[in-house]
């Protein structure tokens, strides 16, 4: 059984390493500041006893007052998982750092979020629309699209 690690346990470790970056930690997930996302992600990937080498999925949810981007991390080596989240509050130009440098699986999935939710990812090598055509107006998965 994949062990779902508690966000609050991991938060303690993260907080020691990068003070002030944890916004909220529950048993189910760990919410971090967008600006320290890359540091936290790299720490989670490279620390030996965490070893999150596999990024299962990335997705975004539009909560109207903010966009929440969800990262499901898994460690194939240790067979445990963690839900990492971050938020961005801008609606006109939401931007987050890209994790493609850590997990290449983010490539298409970040493009999909950019396409359908309109969140830009800084540092993505090829950020273009992926399922809709260039020139399509709006981002369909946003709650104010329709």
């Amino acid at each position, binding site marked *: 059984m994949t062990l779902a690690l508690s966000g609050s346990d991991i938060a303690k470790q993260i907080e020691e390493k990068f003070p002030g970056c944890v916004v909220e930690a529950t048993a189910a997930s760990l919410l971090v500041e967008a600006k320290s996302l890359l540091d936290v992600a790299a720490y989670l990937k490279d620390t030996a006893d965490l070893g999150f080498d596999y990024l299962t999925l990335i997705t975004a*949810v539009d909560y109207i007052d903010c966009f929440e981007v969800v990262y*499901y991390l898994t460690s*194939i080596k240790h067979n445990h998982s963690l839900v990492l989240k971050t938020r961005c509050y801008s609606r006109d130009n939401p931007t987050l750092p890209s994790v493609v440098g850590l997990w290449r699986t983010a490539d298409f999935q970040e493009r999909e979020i950019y396409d359908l939710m309109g969140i830009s990812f800084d540092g993505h090598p090829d950020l273009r629309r992926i399922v809709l055509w260039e020139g399509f107006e709006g981002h369909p998965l946003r709650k104010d699209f329709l």
Partner: protein
Amino acid sequence: MATAETREIVVNTEPFVVNFGPAHPSTHGVFRMRMTLDGEVIVKMEPVFGYLHRGIEKLAEERTYTQIIPLTDRLDYLASMSNNLAYCLAVEKLAGIDVPERAEYIRVIIAELQRIASHLCAVGFFLNDCGAFQTPVVYMIREREKILDLFDMVSGQRLTYNYMRVGGVSQDIPEEFIPAVQKFVDEMPGWIDEYEWLLKENEILLARSKGVGILPPDLAINIGASGPVLRASGVPWDIRKADPYSIYDRFKFDIPIGLAGDCYDRYRVRIEEMRQSLRILKQAMKDLPKGEVRSEVPHLIRPPVGEAYGHLEAPRGELGFYLVSDGSIAPYRFHVRASTLINLTALADMMRGWKIADAILIFGSIDICMGEVDR
């Protein structure tokens, strides 16, 4: 002194771009590869898709939890039962619904039959891509047809079943179903042996697929590959073992893995997985209990506010559904973790340096279904 007559003729080659697809028999649907070629060798490949985008994630936000089940059929239409099941697992996790024992066994039997049907298609069309045009695939279609008949028996449909329900399955299996599956399970090893006899040491297949399109294990993990693509690279990661859902922890089976991570290994892993599925089917049929097939679930399910991710090992990899509930009758957010889309991430790396003829093979060995890639 160089004059016009004595000047050497220098052939300048320059890269040129070929649009492969979108409508091409080898692209398994509507998929386009923008290939930059140097002669016949691929220098750069850029996948272009979205031709089959139907906005299923958006559509689902306007439907009740039960109405979404037929939408999931239209994702990976070669493995609809697995999609149904993955979605139902996610809703059950979100709403905390239990499933009766008999329904769990029926689900396992159906899901494993679906895996065999899907792998038959995968192997058959892979051989098609190898150049063995249409002849081997007819052998595979022959057996797949028997599974479709079995599904017809339980659901009345041959492709989009809409059979699973939140909290069980839509109806009990008919009396003649289990003997028919038994007959299939008895016959199938012979058919697999026949494929192996024709293909395992087939010189053309070996020459075309051995060492072609290698995906190293560390890259496979990094790009988030799953299913036979990941296992062929030598990573023994199967959700049925790693994170057992339903009742998979009760069955004995092995995870076949490849060593080289080439096209041949991906083909071999699929053949072996069919044998393992038959093992699970035998055990599940033996233990099938009597009883209810569906727990009491209201017509309009209102899961508590929260989120859940339900996943399973679909024939093409890890298929997951991420659901966010706001307490109403429709999900606030519905996201599909499409295994085939993610498996395509490394396609460009696998193709670089190979010729066009090999590219078709590499693409075929990943086994994609455009319905799931584009959604």
